C-alpha cells in the first residue's frame, strides 16, 4: 500500500501530520507511539522571544469540540533550536516549524533562523496575530497582509517549503488562499480555529479569561472540509486539511475533496495515541476501498452535474 505523498517537494511517508499546538514538541507523545510512523510533526507555534501566553483559564470543552486561548505560549526560537529540535527524530520524520509573529520583520527573522536548521523540513506560517494591522482586521483576515507575510517568509526560506496556515474566520477563504499563493507560499494549511466563546450562566463569567477563543475538534470538521474544498479550487499549490480529523476515514474525506495531507489536532487530546492510530489504520481502510495509492483518489469527489445545482 502506497500512502506516500509529495507535499510541495517534501516527501511524506503518509499524509498524517500533527497540528501545531496539539502535539507539543512531539516528545510528549513518545510514550504513546513511534514518532517515525507519522507523516510529519508540526510543532507548537514559535515566536522570537519566549511567550507566556494568555491568562488562565484558557481551555473550555464544548459539544464535540473545545475552545482554546493559549496564546502561543512557547519557549522561544532559541530554546526550541537548542533544547527541543535535537531530541526529535527529524531524520526519520519531517519536523515542520510553526511560526508566529506580529510583524513582517519578525516573521522574516524566524524564517531565516529556522530554515537554516537541518532538522526543520518545512515552515508553517500562522497568520493570526490579532494586533499587527493597526487598521483593525486581524492579520490572517486581510489578504494583503497574508500575501506580505508569505513574501517576507519566502524571501528568507528559498530552500524549504513554506506553508501558510489560513484562518476560517473570513468572508471568502478563496481570496485568502490566492493571496498566500501570490505571495509565494508553496502550500496552504487550513483551517486554524474558528472564533468562538463559552460562558458560565451561574458564575456569569466567560469560560476563558481571554473571553473569546478558538474552536476546534469534530464540531468544526464540516467547516474545515468546506474551506479546503473552496481553497483547492482557488489555487494550484497543495493544500493540507486541518480540523476535526479523528480517524482514518476523516483523512480520506479531506483527500477526497483535494487535500494532499491532513493534520490531527484536538484528536490528540481525545487519546494520546490518536495520530499514531490514524496513520496505522489508513492502509487498511484504503485497501478496503480498493485504493492502492492516494494520487488517483485525491480530489476525485464526484460533483453533481450543473443541472442539479442551486
Amino acid at each position, binding site marked *: 500500500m502506497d500512502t506516500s505523498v509529495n507535499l510541495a517537494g517534501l516527501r511524506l511517508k503518509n499524509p498524517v501530520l500533527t497540528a501545531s*499546538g496539539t*502535539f507539543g514538541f512531539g516528545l510528549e507523545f513518545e510514550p504513546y507511539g513511534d514518532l517515525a510512523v507519522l507523516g510529519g510533526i508540526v510543532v507548537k507555534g514559535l515566536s522570537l522571544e519566549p511567550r*507566556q501566553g494568555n491568562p*488562565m483559564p484558557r481551555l473550555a470543552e464544548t459539544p464535540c469540540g473545545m475552545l482554546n486561548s*493559549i496564546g502561543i505560549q512557547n519557549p522561544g526560537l532559541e530554546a526550541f533550536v537548542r533544547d527541543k529540535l535535537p531530541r526529535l527524530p527529524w531524520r526519520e520524520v519531517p519536523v515542520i516549524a510553526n511560526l508566529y509573529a506580529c510583524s513582517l520583520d519578525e516573521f522574516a527573522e524566524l524564517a531565516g533562523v529556522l530554515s537554516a536548521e537541518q532538522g526543520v523540513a518545512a515552515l508553517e506560517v500562522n497568520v493570526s496575530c490579532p494586533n499587527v494591522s493597526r487598521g483593525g482586521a486581524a492579520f490572517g483576515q486581510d489578504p494583503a497582509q497574508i500575501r506580505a507575510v508569505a513574501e517576507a517568509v519566502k524571501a528568507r526560506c528559498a530552500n524549504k517549503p513554506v506553508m501558510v496556515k489560513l484562518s476560517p474566520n473570513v468572508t471568502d477563504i478563496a481570496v485568502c488562499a490566492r493571496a498566500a499563493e501570490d505571495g509565494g507560499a508553496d502550500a496552504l494549511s487550513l483551517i486554524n480555529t474558528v472564533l468562538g466563546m463559552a460562558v458560565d450562566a451561574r458564575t456569569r463569567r466567560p469560560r476563558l479569561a481571554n473571553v473569546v477563543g478558538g474552536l476546534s*475538534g469534530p464540531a468544526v470538521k464540516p467547516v474545515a472540509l468546506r474551506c479546503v474544498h473552496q481553497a483547492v479550487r482557488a489555487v494550484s499549490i497543495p493544500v493540507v486539511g486541518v480540523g476535526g480529523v479523528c480517524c482514518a476515514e476523516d483523512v480520506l474525506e479531506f483527500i477526497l475533496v483535494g487535500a494532499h495531507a491532513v493534520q490531527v489536532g484536538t484528536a*490528540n*487530546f*481525545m487519546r494520546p495515541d490518536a495520530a499514531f492510530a490514524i496513520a496505522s489504520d489508513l492502509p487498511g481502510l484504503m485497501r478496503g476501498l480498493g485504493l492502492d495509492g492516494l494520487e488517483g483518489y485525491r480530489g476525485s469527489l464526484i460533483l453533481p452535474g450543473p443541472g442539479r445545482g442551486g
Partner: protein
Amino acid sequence: MRHGACREVKVLEVVPLGQSKRPGEFFELRLELPDWEAWRPGQFVMLRPLSWGLELVWGRPFSIASADRGVLCVLFQALGRGTRRLAGLRPGDQVLVWGPLGNGFAVDPGKRTLILAGGMGLAPFRAYVERHPAPDLIRLFFAHRFPLECYPFDYLSGLVDAVRVEERSPGDLALVIDALRAEMAAFDQRGLILACGPTPFLGTVRDRALELGLAERTQLSLEERMACGVGACLGCAVKDAGGGNVQVCSRGPVFWAGDVQLGRG
C-alpha cells in the same frame, strides 16, 4: 513504558459510596489495571470511556487511589458532565486509560509525614499510605464537607494516626483553617508535609508553610482543567516561583510549596 501507556480496559465495578447520605455522588471506580511497569502514589490517570464518542473530547484526570493485583481504583465525586457519565458505567464497559501521569509525592521512610487532605483530595493518599514502608510515621489530617462514608477515611484511620474536621456550615471554615495551621505548627520540622485538596485549602497550607519556613518540606498536589494530561496542550498552566508557566500535568501535579503560586492571573 514506551508505546505502552494508553490502553482500553474494562470496567470491573462502579461502587457507590455513602449513598444513604449523598445519593449518586461518590463512587469508587474499579478498572482492569493496564500493563504498567511502575507507578507512584500522587500520580494520576486520564480516563475516557469509549461511550463518550465524540461529544466530550477530553479525558478526565483522577488520582490513582490504588493499583494492585490487576485492579486500578479511582475515587470520584460526580459533579459535572463527565463524572456523572462515569457514574453510569457498567461492568464490561470500555474505558481508555492513559497514565500513570505526573510525578507523585515524595517519600521519606525514615521521617514523620504529615498528610493534609481536603475532601476528595484524600484519594491519592489511600495509595500513599498503602505503599508507605512505615505508615506508623504518618499522621493524617482530613477536612471534609460531606459525610465520612463518602471518603476512604475510616479505612485509612485504621492504618495511620488520623484526625478529622468536618465543615458542616460555611462558618466552620475558620475552624478548619485554625486546625490546619495548628497541625502544621505542631509538626516535626524535619519530616514531610503533603497536601491535596481544593485550591483555597492548598493556599492555606502554602501560606502556613512559608510562615513556618517549611516550604521545602511541603508538597502540594494541584488541580487544573486538563485536556491532554501529557504536557502538550498548555491548558493546565500554573505560575512557578519566577512567574513562568508550568504544566500541572507533566511538571506536577505535585509541587514543592515554594515552587508554585496559587490562584489565577
